[in-house]
């Protein structure tokens, strides 16, 4: 009954888009071989450790992954396959039957003996992540408890893929909040999120980025609501809770804090809250919705002597001698200039294109599967046009009128980008290692959806329809091409 009421409350174009996204998510989830998405072994291992042992992966222990996990990975050759275009997943029925016979003899400890670390100092690379996403993934893990490992892994992927529906729906709402109720524009923007190939690929794997994208989308929508409508207890709690979800999913979520602080302050000002004790008390419940869960996690991490945020080891290696952060940033986005100390060998010529365009739109598997080159040019130009169009739309609509909202959304983007660059710069300086990947920008995908809607809104109504239809069609074709390329890479 509740589901029917919810479905009736949702606009039909959005429902149809969400069904399409779910269909594509299921296709990605079932097509990609086990653990052939970025860091999926570590994320599955974390989820299994949490589900089986009731605690996150440890820093000292006996086995990084469970016996069951290691045996399955060996049977299908997943480690050998990762990033290796010469390899294919094992598809021999005889090997599969041998695996089944092997796992039939496993005791219960074969699932639960992965504690996240090995005696030789090895450990689960995802262990520093907060536990929320993995707790979320415990649901399908338990539902599939009666099945073999692959039954549980694929249920977890399908469950994770649902998070992209949340992101697409939140983008729809975000656009509605800013552009008004214009389903055509909302559909275009939400389709950018729900049909973007990299987002669906990552979302349909076991990876906390799926939850992060959703949390960013919801936070951006709720932040705009708080700014536009004024702070209330309800919308403040919702905004802070969404932010807490992001923070408890991945340290990247901390990038939301400056923008959320701005939204709360602007929303409070709009609601007439001033710096008086009585008024400030009204702001307490929203803040508690953020502070209590995050503080609880920080306290747990402290008491259990584990890092509370992802820690990148920036030292201990051979650092790279470069000319400083300005030079690094210049060369990240632009060709280097004579006399400039170049970035390390092996770094892409213009990393922004490699990471923020190609890696953002589509590099699959362990990044070894690429789209055809011309498609990267198209999506690069498309991205630039959408961003420029959004800028024009913002200027034409009046910067003063929408300045706070623009500052809020800009702060989300800048904080995320700044954090990624700071981390990479430190890593380059300390270890000469590359850090950034295109998927790290996926939490900003709702902004690209908003940009698509805003750019489309600049056109005459007839042109809007043409552009909207063409853009949605292009995104679907991109999905189909990506699925075909990934299928051919793994199985042909």
């Amino acid at each position, binding site marked *: 009954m509740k589901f029917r009421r919810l479905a009736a409350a949702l606009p039909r174009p959005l429902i149809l888009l969400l069904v399409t996204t779910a269909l594509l998510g299921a296709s990605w989830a079932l097509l990609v071989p086990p653990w052939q998405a970025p860091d999926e072994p570590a994320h599955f291992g974390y989820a299994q450790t949490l589900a089986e042992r009731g605690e996150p992966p440890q820093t000292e222990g006996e086995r990084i992954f469970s016996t069951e996990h290691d045996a399955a990975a060996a049977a299908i050759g997943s480690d050998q396959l990762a990033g290796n275009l010469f390899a*294919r997943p094992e598809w021999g029925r005889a090997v599969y039957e041998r695996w089944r016979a092997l796992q039939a003899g496993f005791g219960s400890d074969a699932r639960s003996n992965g504690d996240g670390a090995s005696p030789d100092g090895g450990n689960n690379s995802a262990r520093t992540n907060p536990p929320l996403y993995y707790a979320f993934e415990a649901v399908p893990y338990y539902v599939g408890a009666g099945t073999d490992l692959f039954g549980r892994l694929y249920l977890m992927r399908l469950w994770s893929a649902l998070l992209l529906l949340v992101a697409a729906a939140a983008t729809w709402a975000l656009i509605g909040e800013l552009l008004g109720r214009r389903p055509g524009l909302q559909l275009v923007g939400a389709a950018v999120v729900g049909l973007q190939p990299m987002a669906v690929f990552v979302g349909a794997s076991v990876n906390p980025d799926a939850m992060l994208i959703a949390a960013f989308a919801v936070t951006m929508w709720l932040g705009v609501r708080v700014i536009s409508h004024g702070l209330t207890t309800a919308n403040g709690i919702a905004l802070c809770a969404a932010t807490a979800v992001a923070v408890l999913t991945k340290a990247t979520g901390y990038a939301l804090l400056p923008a959320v602080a701005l939204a709360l302050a602007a929303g409070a000002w709009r609601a007439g809250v001033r710096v008086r004790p009585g008024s400030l008390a009204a702001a307490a419940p929203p803040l508690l919705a953020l502070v209590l869960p995050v503080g609880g996690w920080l306290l747990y991490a402290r008491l259990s002597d584990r890092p509370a945020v992802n820690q990148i080891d920036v030292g201990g290696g051979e650092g790279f001698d470069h000319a400083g952060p300005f030079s690094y940033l210049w060369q990240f986005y632009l060709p280097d200039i004579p006399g400039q100390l170049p970035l390390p060998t092996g770094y892409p010529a213009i990393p922004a294109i490699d990471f923020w365009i190609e890696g953002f739109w589509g590099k699959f598997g362990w990044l070894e599967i690429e789209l055809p080159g011309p498609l990267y040019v198209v999506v690069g130009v498309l991205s630039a046009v959408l961003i420029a169009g959004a800028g024009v739309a913002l200027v034409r609509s009046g910067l003063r009128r929408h300045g706070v909202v623009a500052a809020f959304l800009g702060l989300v983007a800048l904080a995320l980008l700044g954090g990624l660059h700071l981390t990479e710069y430190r890593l380059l300086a300390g270890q000469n290692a590359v850090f950034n990947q295109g998927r790290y920008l996926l939490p900003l995908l709702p902004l690209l959806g908003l940009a698509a809607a805003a750019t489309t809104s600049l056109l005459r109504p007839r042109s809007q*329809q043409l552009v909207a239809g063409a853009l949605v069609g292009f995104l679907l074709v991109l999905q189909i091409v990506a699925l075909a390329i990934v299928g051919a890479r793994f199985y042909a």
Partner: protein
Amino acid sequence: MRSRALIAFLVVTVVGVAVALLSAARDERDLAFTLGVAPGLVAAELGPGGVACQTPVDVAESFDGVRLFVGTFHRPGQPLGVTVRRAGRGGPIAKGRLPSGYPDGARPTVALDATASAGEQVEVCVRNLGDRRVALFGGPELAKRDSTVEIAGRDQHTDLVLEFTQESRSALAWLPEIFDRASVFRPVWVGTWTYWLLVGLVLLGAPALLARALRDAFGATDGSGDGDGSLAGDLPQSRTQA
């Protein structure tokens, strides 16, 4: 008005899918299965008459050709003989011969005189039939677990780059095998049928859903936009709009 979004969507989708299908139809493939070894070292160097065997090899799918990765030390390639026999020095299943003259670093496919069947466990031996040395590229032993290269019965702790082939066909013609392969190591409720169903839904269902979504979205009241480029009306008025 209503049809413009639909027409644009259908044109882009139909043209895009047609180009993708055409590319797939022209994409020739012959892979039955592979050991999955990436070339990183010389796994076996064979002098005249030398023999290297990769053993054991689980035959995932029947094959009638073997692709090698051969180095010739900057000289024209030497003739090679390939023998497939049952693992444990069993009887021969198939043989093939690679003529001389191939270039250095080539990846020639050796056609076999018979088909090795799926489900067998075999060993694949390569003999240098020429009078100069050749190098067979491969990787360290862990590149393929439970299988190794032997020369004169001695474990070389390496694996060969070996791909097992069938008759070349377009990627589209391989779809039944692709879906069959994808259904292995999956939940018990997934079968080949699952992928056929998903292909149908993605190629037909998804366009239908999105076409309907576009029609509904642009057919709705004020859904076509006002074209004035404004980001929003008065924001407080949008209180109930999202």
